Each structure stands twice: as C-alpha cells, then as structure tokens.
C-alpha cells in the first residue's frame, strides 16, 4: 500500500521535475530570443546615431569647390600672376588673413586674350569672392573693373562658360 502510494508520488514528482525543467528551458530560450531582438534593436539604434554623427562630421569637414568665371574690363592687358596676386591681396585686406587661408581663392585658369578667368574657391566663401571681385578697382596701379559672370561646380562647365557666355 505504502509502496503503491510512493510510486505514484514519485511519478508525480518526476513529471513535475520534467515539467519544471521544460519550463525553465523554454524560459531560457525565450530570454535568449528576446535579448537577441533587443540587441539587434540596440545595434540598429547605434548604427543610426553613428550614421547621423558621421554625416554631420562629413558635412562640416568636406569642402566643396566652386568655380567663379569672371571678366576684366580695362584698357590694359593683365598677366595671370598680376590678377591672382591682386585677388589674394584684396581678399585678405577685406576679410582678413584667416578667412583668406580658409577660402584659398586660386586663379586656376586665365585667358589673357579675352581677359577672362576662373577662380576656384571653397563653397563657404563663394559669396565673399563674388562680393570682392566687384570692388577690385585697380591692378598694379592701372584702373580696371572685375565682373563675376557665373558660378559653377565643375571646371569643365566653367571653361565652357568662359568661352561662350556674354561674349561680345
């Protein structure tokens, strides 16, 4: 009698133990899956934040170039060096040495026969250079007027404009 009861109890005990084990295994599996989902979500968020920051950094750091096509009105014919020096000097006089270093206006192309040229400058200081060009009144003591014609993003287009736009 006692043995019978004991065997029944043992069976129940075994089943209970097996059930608890199964439940714990299930819980573990569920937990693992949940942590996986969470971790994937966290990693996604991290990536998003990283991408946002890295994009911001890129926009600050990257300096795009702008090409300003200009023409000179004067009785005299100027050489490339004279024009470049005049532009650099005028820029540092008007906006200061630090701005001049940041902007770095370079006369990358100048055609003395038509007295037109292309200035390469950082996109941030494009407006400064356009403002400056109209107020350069003399180069090497000879009076002149510099007229900004067009601003482009590529040198190819700038050269095309140099020989086509507003030619009289």
């Amino acid at each position, binding site marked *: 009698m006692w043995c019978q009861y004991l065997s029944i109890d043992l069976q129940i005990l075994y089943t209970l133990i097996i059930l608890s084990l199964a439940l714990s295994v299930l819980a573990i599996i569920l937990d693992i899956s949940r942590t996986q989902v969470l971790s994937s979500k966290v990693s996604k968020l991290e990536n998003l934040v990283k991408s946002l920051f890295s994009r911001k950094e890129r926009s600050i750091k990257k300096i795009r170039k702008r090409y300003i096509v200009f023409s000179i*009105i004067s009785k005299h014919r100027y050489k490339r060096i004279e024009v470049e020096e005049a532009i650099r000097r005028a820029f540092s006089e008007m906006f200061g040495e630090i701005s001049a270093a940041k902007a770095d206006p370079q006369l990358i192309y100048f055609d003395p026969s038509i007295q037109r040229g292309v200035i390469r400058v950082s996109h941030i200081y494009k*407006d*400064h250079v*356009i*403002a*400056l*060009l*109209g*107020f350069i*009144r*003399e180069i090497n003591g000879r*009076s*002149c*007027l*510099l*007229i*900004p014609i067009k601003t482009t993003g590529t040198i190819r287009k700038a050269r095309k404009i140099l020989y086509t736009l507003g030619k009289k």
Partner: protein
Amino acid sequence: MKIYIDLWIKSLDSKTAEILRKLGYKAIAVEEERERVADLLVITKRVIEANTRKELKEKLHGIKRKHVLVSVKPLSIEAARMAAHDSRVDTIIIDDTCYKYIDRNQINLMKQHSKPLELPLGRWLTYTPRKRSAIYRRVVYYLFHTKMPLIVTSCAKNWDELLVPRSTIYLLSIAFHIPLSQAVLSLTSYPRELISRCGVSI
C-alpha cells in the same frame, strides 16, 4: 529680368555709359551729364549740402520737382532735421562728412516722414576704419529699427568707380546681414519707386 538703377553718378561720359550698359543698368541719376546717351534712362540728381536750416530752404527753393531727384547731405543737426521733414527731399545721404548728424532721433524722424537713407557704397570702403565703423553702426541701426529701405549708390566720377550689381548685392548681404532677396531691392525696386515718385516711369 532685374532692372538695376544707380541713383548717384557724379559725371557721365560715353565710356561710363557703355560700362553701365554692360553691367545691366537701365536707369541712372546723374549730377553732371557731359554727353547724351542712348539706351539708358537718365534723370537729374541734385545733391544739396547745407549747414543751416535757412541755407537748405534757400537751396531747395529753386529746384524743379519733376524729373529731378533731390538728395541732401546735412552738415548740421538742424539741416538734418529739416531734410527729414521736407517733402521735397527724396533721400538723405550718409557719408564721412555728415555721419555724425544721422543719430537716433534723426533716424526716428526719417522713419516718421519715410525718408530713405542713401549710402555711397563704393566710397564707404575707402574711408578710414573709424569712419567706416561709425557709418556701419548707423546703417545697421537704421535697418534694424526702422525697417526702411536702404538705397545704395556708387557716387562714381569715372567708369572704374561703378558698382557691379552682383558684387554689391553679395557685399550688402555679407556686411550688413541683409538677406539676398532684400539686398537686390536696394539696387532695383527701392530706387525705382523713388524715380517713379519724380514722375518718370520705367
């Protein structure tokens, strides 16, 4: 297409007229016209320098109103106040000789009588740093407190003193923090309004 107008050219000759056309100007106000020019609308400009109220009154007395733009360069406070009051005056000039009289009260009075301020921008860059800053402060105060138009002129005697419109607009935007869309109006719409007030349509 934008109609650029320069409201103060000291003397006009054929070379200056040719370059004005190249730069895209359609109308100008000239103090001294040496030669007749085609393709440009030319109106007369009278610049009155006055030390006293009485002197200004006398000088304004003989001027015809039609087709003539009257600008005053006040050389005393009373002349400045009178210029702001008088309906015959179109603009009040600010330069190195008269910037001291364009004070806060004067600007308020100009706002009351809707008298625009005229700045010879080409000359402004040639002044001493002290005078340049003083004028700058006054212009910024004028722009900020009155929200009135600023008229920009060249005051050019020769062709190489003319204002390049695009450069002028960008300089106004950089130096006086005027938005580009409004800076354009200093060379186009505002002068045009003044010209049409003088009885000239463009």
